[in-house]
């Protein structure tokens, strides 16, 4: 018992000396930092986290841009931007919510990378485009190394996450089939309805004459316009898939 008290007091004294030392060294450090800052030009602002793709638009000088409210083929939420710079150059930015998602999705982009089209990323977002443009993003937003032509290894997603992505992909694609390919729609939706009960009702509550018209119109143009339009339905399709995938 006595031994315990002595030990406690000893620790107590040591703590007081430690605290004094800490305060003293902190003050010295603060002084050194203050002198350094006063003596040199103030550095530009530190890179910040990128959470919304459109906040990168300001540093890119896009001639026009296409915005995505979600990734219809992946379980995680996404917001994205494809920024067109003229002369055929484009920068694609995709921002996900879950850590690791950017690396999973990037695997699909790997074989289109080249010296002229590279990537910067963290584990939540990536940007693909000309290296000069990526440097502008990197100066403003915190990234891992890069620009690079190489994509790092991807973490594995769970079978549930994978199935949720497939559910969303095929249900969203069924909107297109319902509009332009009724035979294929009938075959596909009957499978989806077996696997995810209620699929048919959901898609048929979405597809009306306006949707059919919009899908047909966007199918004649570039595929990106169709993807952009379809991403608007994810707020109905993804919660449905989340509720149906065990």
């Amino acid at each position, binding site marked *: 018992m006595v031994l315990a008290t002595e030990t406690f007091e000893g620790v107590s004294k040591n703590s007081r000396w430690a605290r004094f030392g800490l305060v003293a060294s902190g003050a010295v450090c603060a002084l050194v930092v203050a002198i350094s800052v006063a003596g040199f030009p103030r550095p530009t602002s530190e890179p910040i986290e990128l959470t919304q793709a459109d906040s990168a638009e300001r540093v890119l000088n896009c*001639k*026009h841009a296409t915005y995505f409210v979600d990734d219809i*083929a992946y379980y995680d939420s996404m917001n994205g931007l*494809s920024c*067109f*710079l*003229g*002369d*055929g150059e*484009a920068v*694609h930015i995709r921002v996900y919510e879950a850590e690791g998602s950017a690396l999973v999705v990037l695997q*699909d*982009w790997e*074989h*289109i990378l*080249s010296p002229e*089209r590279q990537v910067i990323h963290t584990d939540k977002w990536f940007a*693909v485009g000309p290296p000069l443009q990526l440097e502008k993003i990197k100066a403003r937003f915190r990234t891992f190394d890069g620009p690079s032509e190489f994509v790092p290894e991807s973490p594995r997603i769970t*079978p549930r996450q*994978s*199935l949720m992505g*497939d559910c969303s*992909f*095929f249900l969203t*694609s*069924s909107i*297109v*089939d319902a509009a332009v*390919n009724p035979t*294929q729609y009938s*075959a*596909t939706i*009957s*499978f*989806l309805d077996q*696997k995810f009960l209620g699929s048919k009702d959901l898609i048929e509550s979405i597809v009306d004459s306006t949707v059919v018209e919009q899908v047909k119109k966007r199918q004649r143009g*570039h*595929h*990106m316009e169709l*993807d952009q339009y379809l991403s608007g339905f994810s707020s109905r399709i993804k919660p449905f898939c989340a509720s149906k995938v065990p």
Partner: protein
Amino acid sequence: MRFNSFRRIAVPLLVATALIGTSSGTALASPDTSDAKIPKVEVKSDFRFDQPIFQDQKTFGSGLTPEQATDPDIKALEVRPLAGCGGRQSSAPVGGAFYLSQDGCSYIGLNSLATRYYSWQLAPFVNSNACVKARGYNHTSAVVWVSAGCGGSGGVNVPWGNVASVAKVQLASMGTTGTTVVWY
């Protein structure tokens, strides 16, 4: 042996002609007036120079005006199908997960609006239905996966753009056993 020697010389020549022709064809055609236009063909890392390459007539003409489509100089740039570019057979085990196929034929898209039609059906004596996704490229040459349907057969027209790459699909078995599909 003589055929192989012929291929060694003829195929690269054909590809070179197609690639040179593609740039000038796009410049002549200018089917896409947006800023997002890709002015030259992009050769992807998986493009194979040592296998049949083709761009069919129907797709070739899709982005051209009627005058351009009948212009003999533009038509001369067309790369015709070569023998050996038939269907591919790919399998997926039971479980519902998607598996990436082996490479299909190589394709060169001759303008930013070029498309490629994929079709598939269950292989003979296979009862387990499948779902299939087909790979294409959008007008900025980024990868897009498009549903080619579920069941016993399906098909879809995917965007291909000014890209030289190989066709690929992903397939999953929807039944209680694995599945095999033949796809084109």
